[in-house]
Structures are given as structure tokens and as C-alpha cells.
């Protein structure tokens, strides 16, 4: 079964945009989530990421990220509630706990945890949309002229991860199929076997990379082919990245989101304090930042 976060080629604007534009756009949303603590802005950021994902057709990735994000958010709220004793509004006194000492559950600690949780959800959805909509091959290709060896390693790893996952699933099945009279497979022997198998696979994948020409020096305008009819003699030169007509849109959206977010900080748009009592600001600056971020979620719409 494919991971919900696996890249699926689709003809949408986000998928056809160049990796730089897509990364800038989704990165801007993630940056806002890290910059801001205002629940309004964080909700707007999460909603923008969800909208972008749905418009880009990454429904499964968004759903899975939301499921995991909410689970993580609940955990954060619970842990924060238990370990943070600050706050004026005590909801419950749970007495002395080993290691934790006196545990008081306060509304402020829970609110702070909820903000951390919202941040986690927004960032996870943005990354899920990136994973499902941005072609990793194009990202690696863009990186190759800058860091050839790193791109090669990343390519090898990105191919090996699904292969190793499939190997692990097969090994698990084989462990379940052992007869009752055979020795238990055991975690350590299985892990050793998986590692050995992965190394074998890595050799095969590396051989394929070698055959595809990954070891060749990236071609430049002056590189000459040693083969008749090769690229140099056919007028081929450095391969230029194909730009998408949607690139500008994503770069503009990223710039707008970041500009508004940065400008909003000194204007008090990030007005949230959990302690000593909860204060959530909803002034015009906060609403403006939230509105711009929320609207940016429409960027992957086919006709804007």
C-alpha cells in the first residue's frame, strides 16, 4: 500500500510549479506557523495549508496529516497540562506525582499546549502537501548542480526508503509464515536481515544509477560528447530547468505571506499570552495577517 504522503503526479499548478516556487510557498506557510503564536493566525495557516492541499488534489495526504497532527496536538496538550503548573485558572489538582511533583491542571497550560498543537498541525499539513505534490526528482535535480554528491546520496536514499519498506513488509510476512516448529524470527535477526537485504538492494540501485549516468559530470555548454550523435553534436548544452507559468504566482504568494507576517509582528498581530491568564488578541493587525494567510491557501487554484 502506498504511503499517503507519497508524491502523486497530477497536472495541478502546485505539481507543475518549479520546486523552488512550491517550496517557497509552502515554506512561507510553515514559517508563519513558527513565527506566530496567535491562535487566529495559526488556525488561518493550518486552514491555508489544508485548502492548498485539497486544491492540489492531495486529499489523502491532508487527511493523514490532520489525523496525525490532531493526535500529536492532543498529546502535547495533555503533556503540557501535566508538566506546566503555571497559570491562574486551576481546573484540577491531581496531587503529588512521582518525578512531576505537585500536578495542577491549569487552563493556561492547556491553552499553551493547544497553541503548540496548532503549530504542529499547520506545519505537518504543509509538509504533507509538499511531500504529496512536489516531485522529489525535480527537487534533487535542482540540487544537483549545487551539491552533486548530496543529490546522489539523497536519490539513493529516496529510492531505497520505499524499497526497504517493502522489504520490511515482506520480512514481517515471512516471520508470520514460519511454522510453529521453527525458531522465532526475533526482532534482532529480522533487523539484521533487513539491513543486509537493504545493502544488497542499495548495490542494485547504485548500479542502475551508474547506468543512467549519475556518475557523469553535470554537462556544461562546452562539454563534448564522445559519441557520434551525442548531445554536443546535436546542439544540446546545459539542460535548463523548464519553468512553469504558475511559478510567479507561488513566489508572489510566498512573498506576500512573509511580508505581511513580518510586518505584522511589530504591529502587534501576534497577540497571544497564555500566562498568567489567557489573552488572545483579535485586533485589526491580527485579523489582517490571518486573512492574507488564509487567502494564500487559494494559490493552487487552477484559475486565479
Amino acid at each position, binding site marked *: 500500500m502506498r504511503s499517503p504522503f507519497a508524491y502523486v503526479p497530477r497536472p495541478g499548478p502546485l505539481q507543475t510549479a518549479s520546486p523552488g516556487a512550491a517550496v517557497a510557498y509552502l515554506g512561507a506557510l510553515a514559517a508563519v506557523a513558527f513565527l506566530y503564536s496567535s491562535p487566529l493566525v495559526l488556525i488561518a495557516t493550518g486552514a491555508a495549508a489544508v485548502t492548498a492541499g485539497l486544491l492540489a488534489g492531495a486529499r489523502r495526504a491532508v487527511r493523514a496529516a490532520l489525523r496525525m497532527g490532531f493526535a500529536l496536538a492532543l498529546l502535547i496538550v495533555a503533556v503540557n497540562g501535566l508538566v506546566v503548573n503555571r497559570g491562574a485558572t486551576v481546573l484540577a489538582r491531581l496531587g503529588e506525582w512521582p518525578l512531576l511533583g505537585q500536578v495542577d491542571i491549569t487552563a493556561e497550560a492547556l491553552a499553551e499546549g493547544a497553541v503548540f498543537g496548532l503549530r504542529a498541525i499547520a506545519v505537518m499539513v504543509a509538509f504533507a502537501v509538499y511531500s504529496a505534490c512536489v*516531485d522529489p*526528482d525535480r527537487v534533487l535535480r535542482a540540487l544537483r548542480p549545487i551539491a552533486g554528491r548530496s543529490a546522489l546520496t539523497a536519490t539513493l536514499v529516496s529510492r531505497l526508503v520505499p524499497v526497504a519498506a517493502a522489504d520490511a513488509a515482506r520480512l514481517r510476512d515471512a516471520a508470520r509464515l514460519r511454522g510453529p516448529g521453527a525458531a522465532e524470527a526475533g526482532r534482532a535477526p529480522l533487523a539484521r536481515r533487513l539491513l543486509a537485504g537493504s545493502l544488497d538492494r542499495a548495490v542494485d540501485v547504485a548500479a542502475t544509477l551508474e547506468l*543512467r549516468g549519475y556518475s557523469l559530470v553535470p554537462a556544461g555548454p562546452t562539454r563534448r560528447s564522445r559519441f557520434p550523435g551525442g548531445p554536443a553534436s546535436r546542439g544540446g548544452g546545459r539542460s535548463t530547468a523548464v519553468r512553469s507559468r504558475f511559478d510567479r504566482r507561488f513566489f508572489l504568494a510566498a512573498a506576500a505571506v512573509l511580508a505581511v507576517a513580518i510586518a505584522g509582528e511589530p504591529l502587534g498581530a501576534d497577540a497571544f499570552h497564555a500566562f498568567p491568564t489567557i489573552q488572545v488578541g483579535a485586533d485589526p493587525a491580527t485579523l489582517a495577517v490571518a486573512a492574507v494567510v488564509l487567502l494564500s491557501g487559494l494559490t493552487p487554484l487552477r484559475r486565479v
Partner: protein
Amino acid sequence: MEGLTYSYPRAAAPSLTDVSAEIAPGEFVVLAGRSASGKSTLLKAACGLVPHFHGGEISGAVTVAGIDALDTGPGELAAAVGYLAQDPETQVVSTTVAAEVGLPLEMRGDAPASRARAVEEVALALAIPHLLGRAVDTLSGGELQRVALAAALVTRPRLVVLDEPTSQLDPVAGDELIWLLRRLNEEWGVAVLLAEHRLERCLAAADRVVSMDSGTIAFDGTPADFLAWCRGADPALETPAARLFSLAGIEPLPVGVRAARSVLETRSGAPASSPRRAEGAGSAGPTTAVPHPGKVWGRGTRPPQPSALSLRAAWVELERDERMWDVLRGVDLDVRGGERVALMGRNGAGKSTLLRAAAGLIDPARGRIEAPGGIALLTQNPSDYLVRERVGDELPGEAGMAALRAVGLADAIDADPRDLSGGERQRLALAIALAGRMEGDRLPGLAALDEPTRGMDRARKDELADLVGRLAERGAAVVVATHDVEFAARFAQRVVLLGDGVVIADGPASEVLSGGWYFATEVARVLDFPGVVTPEQGAAILRARPEESG
């Protein structure tokens, strides 16, 4: 290649010894030979993986399209030679098909426009333009193999070398791939060097056969001469049609079905008599008795053995392409103890799913699947079962010993599984699945093997067929999912043919394997005689009908 000798690093003996051969532009050459005879190493030397990737010691010369392959790495050599290996899974490195096919051109710096054209053209040539926008991990094995072939051909190489590319494909996809290669060979003028165990599949397409033995070239000549040579030198390499003619005393030996039929027609002075076609013309049916390979429980005969596997209206669904698909659709099936059953069908027909559901790895969505005596399932990768460094540690105690005896490996108890041969490792994995399911030396349940003959030569397939027979003699029902019709004819009493998740044929092997084209043995396709699937049966028919055997 001139005087090529090569040893892998730390190998005790060379894999190739003084190999000299030349492939002319536009030739289609089949590389034959038993397992470990040096075929794969020869192919790797042709594409530069040997010695540049694998290391080791090499002497002699390899020249491809005027380029010294010992001096040039595989990446640069890829413009002159394309390579396709057995396992399609490890031959793709990109996320999408279009990126994978265009990668070699991108790596050598072709401009986007020329890349796009080359990708489009090779996709059209291989009939995969509809796949270009797909993610590679959503493709079937056959589709993946075509994509890997497209990536090997996109640079318009002068030579393409292929290492058993059909071993994981069903008969339909396998035949299509071979004829696709022949078409590319004829239309593009690409020289083809194809290593293959199932020679009956590709010999008719070949101009020449090179046969390897222990790292040397044992034969080099035309397909017809090869068949005459291997009759005396290595009968395990004979094709079923050639063996049929050998046993019937007919000359010349045919390189394919068409040639065989032509010889028979010439000898009889009329189109090769086919009772099936004769029936259609209103003639009498066959009167020759056909020796049956084994007993089959037919209608009205109550089998003495209890049911080992029972499926009742079984539906199994799996997720594919973000959707749930019915892989098995209301399957009814009964397999009795002692039966030897071949489960056949094209890729994706539901064979593996049926076995996995029977073994409890997948729950049916509806219906009932029961294996009252238990099921020992050997999946497609026997190595997955081997996790320890001593056979005895995998199979401790008396239950382990009984399982080792059942597969004939009792003497290997102190061996390291990695030191066993491929066939022995497969038997050990089967013993691991069987351990604890035996009653003394009897096997009351079901033993199931999923595609066990991949990459096997005929000698190893014969050993496996014997093992299947021994397990059945011990009381086990044996079900083997396989694409290999010749192997099915060799071991099976009964064939169950799946198509799109339903049973489309279920009957005696001799009946099912002689009743079609793709899921029929070569002998059945030559003679088209009901119930005749093996060379021995066919030879008996031909001897009994002297007007055809001359």
C-alpha cells in the same frame, strides 16, 4: 570481446574464462546456459558494470560500438549499450515514469526539447505513452520492466543487453516483451543480447545462440544448430518442441512452434492434423490414447483425502492507486490432500492474493477461506525466511529435523544458509514454513509455493518438481502459483486458471494446458491435440501416427 577473463573480488575462481565473441550490428543473439554459467557476468561486462562497478580482476578486451568498455564507465557507455536486469524493482530510480525514461539523457546534458522528443518516441515504440505521467510505484511488474527497457533504449543505443527480463512476467507479457525486442531489432537495427532460461520463448526470434558453460562459451551458432548441439551436449537446454521431435525421431529440430508445425505439415503433406480443428471441420475426434501424467479427481469420483483448502464465495479486496479493488471475486475452490495444483493466470489475476489469504495474511472481505490442516506458504523470496547463520538454529528440535528430512536437507543442519545453493535455500525456506505442521513424516495440510521457479534453469525446476511430488506423497496438498506453463505441465495434476480475480478454468493439467495459446505448453501449441502437453505425451502421439512422424 577478445580473450575476456574476469573474477569478482575475493572469488575463488573466475566467472569468465577466455571468452571471445562478436555481435554484429543488428543481430539478435540469445545467451543460453545453466544457472551460474557466467551469462549475467558476460552481460555486465558488455555494459561496463564489470569491472567498473563490481571491481575484480579482468583481462582481455571488450569493445562496444567502437568504445573500449574496460576504459569507459557504464554511465558514458550507456549511450552505446542499454542494460535491463531481472528485477524491475531496483531498476527505477525516479518517482515518475517520464523522469525515469528521460534520466539518462538529462545526465548526459541533452537539451529539454531533444529529451522530450526522445522520451516520446521511445514511449511510443514500447507502447507506454499512457504511463508517462504515472508514479513508478503504481506500476505492475510488466509495466515496470517496459519502463526500465525504455530508459535503457532512450539513448538509441547500438546494443541492448537483457538479463532474464521475462522471469517475473506472465506468459502474455513475456511473449510481448520478446516480440517487442524483435520489432525494435528489425525497425531500429538495435543489436540484442538476451540471456534467458525459457528458450522456447525466444529462440524463434533469435538470429544466433551463444551457450555458456562454467564461464566459457560452449556453443556459438544458429538456433537450429544449437538445438542439435544441446541434444547431445546438454539436454537440459532443449526446448520442449525440440525434445518432442527428438523423442519422436523427427528431423530437423524446430526452433519454434511455427517451424515445428511446418515440419509436421511437410511430412504429412497436409496441414498439421489438429483434432481440435478437425472437430470443427466435422471430422472424427482423436482416437489415440494419451498417457496421463497422474491421477485427477474427476466428477463423480469421491477423493479419499480430506479437504486441505476450501474457498467459498471468497472476496478479497486490496488497496491500489488510492482505491480499494476486488482482487478475488467470489472464488470457490477445493483442494484435497495429495493433489498437485498449479495456480496460473496473468500478473495481477489474484494468484498471490489467494495464497496470502489462505495463509491468513489477508482477511477476506466476504466469504470463507479454510485450511483445516494448516498452510505452509513459501513466498516469492525464500531468503526472507532465512534470518540465522546456521540451519539448525532456524529449525531446532525434532519438528525442525522432520521438516529438513521432508525437503531433503537433513545433512545440512550445521551449514550456514548463505553457503547453500539457490535451490537448497529455497528448500530450507520451505522447511521453515513446514516445521511443526507435520505428523511424524506425514504432511496433513497444504504446502503452497508462490512463483518458485523465477530465474531457475530446467535442471533446478526438475528438482523442484520432484520435491513437490514427494510432499504430495506425504499427504500434503501442494499448490504452486506459477507463470511457467512448462513447469506446471511437469508437476501438476490439476490447473486452476485465474482471470481478474475469478476462476476461469479448473481441470486436469493436460486439459487446461492444451486448451489455449498463452497458457498452453509449447508441445500443446505445436500439436493442438487435447490432453497432450509434454514432449513425452506428444512423442507418443506422433509415434502412433506415423504419417506425421514420417
